[in-house]
């Protein structure tokens, strides 16, 4: 068919050709609603069991058509990253672009193959819809536009983190993880959809959405400012936090959660220590209150309390029994996970707002509690859990049977001990991994080979230590045995420790869910080791209280009784951190803030009463 020439005069008869159309069958549209295409962008449906109420759809909506509605009765669990909110759509605004569908982190929302909604003028309310799984006109149309792999607007993959190879890290205590470069941090931060699940799940409610946004904007100082709103242990948490935020992260529903912890670390490392000190001091009271507070223990709980109170203008003295401040973050967590200079940086910031730390002072022996009570307006005890628990199996009183926390403390303090050529660790938690991996490093550098066996009660499906810890420990030569219960520390006739015998585990809990392991007596193994290390938990050394105060205080199954705000049964005494709540740094920090706030109220009430 060639093109028509401009000169073509046309035909007067041509149009009559169309008369032939009279003989054609007319096109009749059926009365039934027609079937829309598989991909049609009709009305919303939302699977409420999958939707987590993150409101990301609301943020991407180009027509401001989405309102979040709280629906009582739906699960609401900040720790799991679920809110009892669901999106409602204003069809007076929606343009059916489907961007909400393409971004939804859970893929819960989609559009159906339904074409029409209309109503009379007095029914305009019907344009405001709360999409549920059932369709909007009591009739469920098939799904149209829904999330497909190539359509995802959420980046499910995390920026890779560079770290040391096993060969180069296994004989030293150098930090394993490199940290993000600026470029990586910005890209990683850009994955965030600002849903705030992280904030809600964090024990101290860190402003993670804000600091992630600031990192994305290239403003690390602003990020640090956001962190110091809630966490004076940001270097520490940027490295070793148990990162509940990442468990709650809505991107983690289908992909890798945003690397919130590494982003925190990046921002802290990107800003000079001096600048961090200036930022941390912002908002510090410009008066001296005249109140004095004593804090026992310089772990994260004690120091956070101290930081807050010092910023409020009070005179705070922290007493620490050991050489250096930091508590378990220094004497527990190994250096390859948390270099001391980063911990020192955090503590320097805390000192810079006016906190006085007195090390080598053990309360109870060097100064009594009674003295503190007399000299100070309030006293906080935040002494953590310093003593290792024992299995009390036969032979466990041998001198070569040691507690993991004691050894870790010695390693940090540089106190020498004979590194055994082979060692058995009892326990399957992160502390067991820390001691196993620390000793593996020392063996490797002294003897050139590693002989560490970890024997854990739990099987690998229910393991307590983090999977990365297990993986990395194995890479470093540690042998990990699961489902083994300790039976006896075997001692030869010369009194020398030979090793540990273990039994196969049949079950750990009894029918009532109580801890009562039962073993297969036939399945016995001997693990050779010149040292056996017990790493099955820690407890508080409460001897500092003395008899009288111990009597006066209330206790709960051997634990000091303290409420959410750390208030004990004695009016001048608060308690924070591991010894009352636990189990990790960020909880200790959160505790510290609450205790500080409680003391603040107490002091204010006290002074107004006096006036």
């Amino acid at each position, binding site marked *: 068919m060639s093109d028509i020439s401009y000169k073509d005069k046309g035909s007067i008869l041509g149009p009559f050709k169309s008369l032939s159309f009279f003989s054609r069958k007319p096109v009749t549209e059926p009365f039934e609603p027609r079937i829309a295409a598989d991909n049609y962008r009709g009305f919303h449906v939302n699977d409420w069991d999958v939707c987590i109420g993150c*409101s990301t759809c*609301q*943020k991407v*909506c180009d027509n*401001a*058509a*989405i*309102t*979040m*509605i*709280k*629906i*009582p*009765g739906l699960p609401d669990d900040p720790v799991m990253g679920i809110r*009892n*909110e669901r999106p*409602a759509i*204003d069809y*007076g*605004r929606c343009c059916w672009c489907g961007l909400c569908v393409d971004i939804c982190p859970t893929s819960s929302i989609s559009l159906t193959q339904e074409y029409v909604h209309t109503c009379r003028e007095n029914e*305009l*309310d*019907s*344009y*405001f819809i*709360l999409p549920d799984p059932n369709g909007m006109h009591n009739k469920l149309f098939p799904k149209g536009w829904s999330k497909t792999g190539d359509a995802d607007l959420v980046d499910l993959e995390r920026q890779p983190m560079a770290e040391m190879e096993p060969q180069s890290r296994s004989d030293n205590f150098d930090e394993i993880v490199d940290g993000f470069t600026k470029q990586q941090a910005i890209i990683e931060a850009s994955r965030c959809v600002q849903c705030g699940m992280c904030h809600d799940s964090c024990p101290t409610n860190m402003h993670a959405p804000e600091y992630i946004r600031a990192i994305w904007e290239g403003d690390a100082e602003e990020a640090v400012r956001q962190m110091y709103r809630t966490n004076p242990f940001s270097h520490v948490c940027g490295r070793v936090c148990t990162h509940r935020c990442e468990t709650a992260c809505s991107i983690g529903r289908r992909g890798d959660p945003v690397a919130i912890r590494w982003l925190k670390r990046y921002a802290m490392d990107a800003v000079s220590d001096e600048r961090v000190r200036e930022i941390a001091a912002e908002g510090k009271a410009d008066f001296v209150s005249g109140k004095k507070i004593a804090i026992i223990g310089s772990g994260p709980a004690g120091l956070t309390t101290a930081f807050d109170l010092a910023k409020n203008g009070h005179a705070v003295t922290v007493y620490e029994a050991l050489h250096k401040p930091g508590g378990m973050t220094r004497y527990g967590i190994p250096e390859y996970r948390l270099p001391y200079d980063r911990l020192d940086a955090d503590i320097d910031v805390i000192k810079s707002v006016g906190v006085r730390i007195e090390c080598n002072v053990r309360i109870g022996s060097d100064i009594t509690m009674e003295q503190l009570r007399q000299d100070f307006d309030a006293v906080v005890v935040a002494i953590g859990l310093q003593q290792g628990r024992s299995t009390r199996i036969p032979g466990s009183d041998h001198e070569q049977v040691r507690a993991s926390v004691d050894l870790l403390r010695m390693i940090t303090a540089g106190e020498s001990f004979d590194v055994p050529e082979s060692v058995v660790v009892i326990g399957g938690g992160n502390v067991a991994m820390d001691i196993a991996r620390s000793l593996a490093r020392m063996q490797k550098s002294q003897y050139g080979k590693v002989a560490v066996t970890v024997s854990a009660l739990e099987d690998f499906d229910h393991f307590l230590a983090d999977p990365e810890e297990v993986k990395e420990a194995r890479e470093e030569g540690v042998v990990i045995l699961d489902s083994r219960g300790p039976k006896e520390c075997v001692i030869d006739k010369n009194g020398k420790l030979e090793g540990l015998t273990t039994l196969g585990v049949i079950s750990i809990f009894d029918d009532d869910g109580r801890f009562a392991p039962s073993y297969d007596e036939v399945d016995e193994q001997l693990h050779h080791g010149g040292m056996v290390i017990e790493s099955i938990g820690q407890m508080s050394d409460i001897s500092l209280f003395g008899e009288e105060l111990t009597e006066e205080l209330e206790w709960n199954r051997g634990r000091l009784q303290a409420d959410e705000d750390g208030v004990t049964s004695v009016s001048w005494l608060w308690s924070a951190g591991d010894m009352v709540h636990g189990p990790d740094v960020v909880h200790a920090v959160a505790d510290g803030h609450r205790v500080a706030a409680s003391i603040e109220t107490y002091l204010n009430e006290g002074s107004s009463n006096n006036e």
Partner: protein
Amino acid sequence: MSKELNLWLDDLLKDIKIIQFKRKNSRRVRIDIAPEALPALLELLQGRASYVHLSAISCVDWIEENEFELVYHVWSYETNSLVSAHTRISREPGVYLSVYDLYTPAAFFERDIHEMFGVYFEGSPDMEKFILTEWNGPPPMRKDFDSEAFVNQTFNWEEYHPQWLKDIEAEGGGITTRPEDVR
């Protein structure tokens, strides 16, 4: 032929002092030039270098620098390339010269820019309102005009309160975040 013309243009433009010249690719050239020299440049481009088609004039309000940027996009059907000539004028009083005598399409773009940004083009055939005939407010494309605020002040949003919402409210739930809260 078109290649030569391009080379010739590059040489020619490099010699002029008051301008900055950047070749983005074989078909795109950016020129930055002082406002007093722009008409002469366009005359040169049109008369001597075959850039006969004024594709558009774009205006950008750089409010922080207190300047308007005017960009003249001219196309050559011979070399198949586009020159974008950028110039900046002061936001106050926002007056510039028309290039209508060189390019007829300028009349449309200048009128549009006048209406939307308030830039007055001396010598343009028609500076009357065109699209916003009944608008007496500030030129709306200026950065200091907040159209969303204007809409919120001028119009009422439909307030919905359907039965399902009432039911949820009765159980203690209800609206938590409105779309305007996250904008």
